[in-house]
């Protein structure tokens, strides 16, 4: 059993962070007219929905919203012990020419984002692809960097981060967990 080391964000902090990310996205892209929000399934989907909602409140435009399943693009698919379940890609608009904003909960090794980039480029040719994450915990294994970061958190590689979102976990919280202890 992993034990709790500390709370990184509570519900109110998550809300404020999402609001800030939405504003930063609008500022950098000079409005919402050409942007589309892509959430990486599972938890990125709910973050994407919330960011799109905030953008609509500020700009009066609901940006295009889509969800990406990166399973088929993973680099560990054939070696995994447990079979990953497919969650389905749901992008019902043409991404060509759009400014795409990828939303995910935690940026860690960068491998998920590499898979997402390949998956998106198979769907069309966006004008730009930008990355927004709630937490950047470091330890990158690929040359990938986020454009919008909720919070940078220094972690050791054997710690883990648990993101709970009320849409599927019943509550909003981000927790830092101790490494699993040997022999327990």
């Amino acid at each position, binding site marked *: 059993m992993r034990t709790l080391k500390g709370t990184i964000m509570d519900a109110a902090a998550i809300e404020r962070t999402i609001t800030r990310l939405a504003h930063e996205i609008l500022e950098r892209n000079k409005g919402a007219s050409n942007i589309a929000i892509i959430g990486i399934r599972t938890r990125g989907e709910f973050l994407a929905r919330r960011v799109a909602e905030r953008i609509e409140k500020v700009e009066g435009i609901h940006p295009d919203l889509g969800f990406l399943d990166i*399973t*088929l693009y993973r680099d560990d698919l*054939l070696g995994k012990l447990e079979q990953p379940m497919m969650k389905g890609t749901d992008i019902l608009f043409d991404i060509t020419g759009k400014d795409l904003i990828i939303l995910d909960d935690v940026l860690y090794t960068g491998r998920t984002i590499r898979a997402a980039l390949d998956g998106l480029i*198979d769907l069309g040719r966006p004008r730009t692809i930008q990355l927004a994450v709630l937490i950047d915990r470091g330890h990158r294994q690929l040359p990938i960097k986020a454009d919008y970061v909720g919070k940078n958190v220094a972690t050791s590689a054997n710690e883990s981060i648990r993101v709970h979102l009320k849409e599927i976990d019943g509550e909003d919280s981000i927790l830092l967990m101790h490494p699993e202890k040997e022999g327990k």
Partner: protein
Amino acid sequence: MPLKSRHLLGLHGMPREDIELILETAISFREVLDRPIKKVPPLQGKTIANMFFENSTRTRLSFELAERRLSADVLGFQTSGSSVSKGETLKDTARNIEAMKVDMVVMRHWAAGAPHYLSNVIDANVINAGDGAHEHPTQALLDLYTIHEKHGKIAGLHVCLVGDILHSRVARSNIYGLTALGAKVSVCGPATMIPHGIERLGVQVFHHLDEVIGNVDVLNVLRVQLERDAGRFFPSLREYHHSYGITKGRLEKAGKPITIMHPGPINRDVELSSDVADGEHSVILQQVLNGVAVRMAILYLLATGNQ
């Protein structure tokens, strides 16, 4: 949860959860087929041999397309002009192909049980693409997918298989799959073409279409297999069409829309009249399209499952 077996030999005895996993996974691949670039990378580096010991167009092309769209390398193999015509045994042929580092084998064979035998003598995953009059599991799975797509469910529907049940591997696999998912299944055809004791598989038997047509949701119309000498089992094609052919008039008498399926190739105006085959309730071409997605799901699940 991965599939329980590392081969797909038949639907007989396949757990319900495995059938549902394949159908659910196929939904994701069906979406891939609507994309501008209909190709995804999960089977990169895997090699698949398609061994067809019997003629096939649709199934062979469908498998080949599914394999290529998953980025696998594909080896084609047909008996004519190969070492099989020189007298090589199935085991030797397969082991030689496997020696070239093949990961999966898709096989159609005229002998029932050939893929089961093969799965015991080679290490590659084996997928049955039709063995004699025994099973054709991928056809039944794409039929299940198509029924679910059209009706939103399978449990509780009444599906009637019409025609030559005796020679039909499609019928057998459909009966296993449909009953596992809770559909009501019946068969209808001339007495000479209904195997004795088929009731034991949980199906109802009819010999007159008009007795059953008013109660069904789906008619899965089987092909009269003239190349298997089906003509010996009824007096004439004209009489067959008169008794078992699905026509517009017959369907109108049923008084409700009935989904029309056919595994192909169609003998027009024998088992189906043209206006029904091309009519608004026909899902025959959807079956073909869904077949690619379902085969992609099967290949993907077998290749990535815990070996």
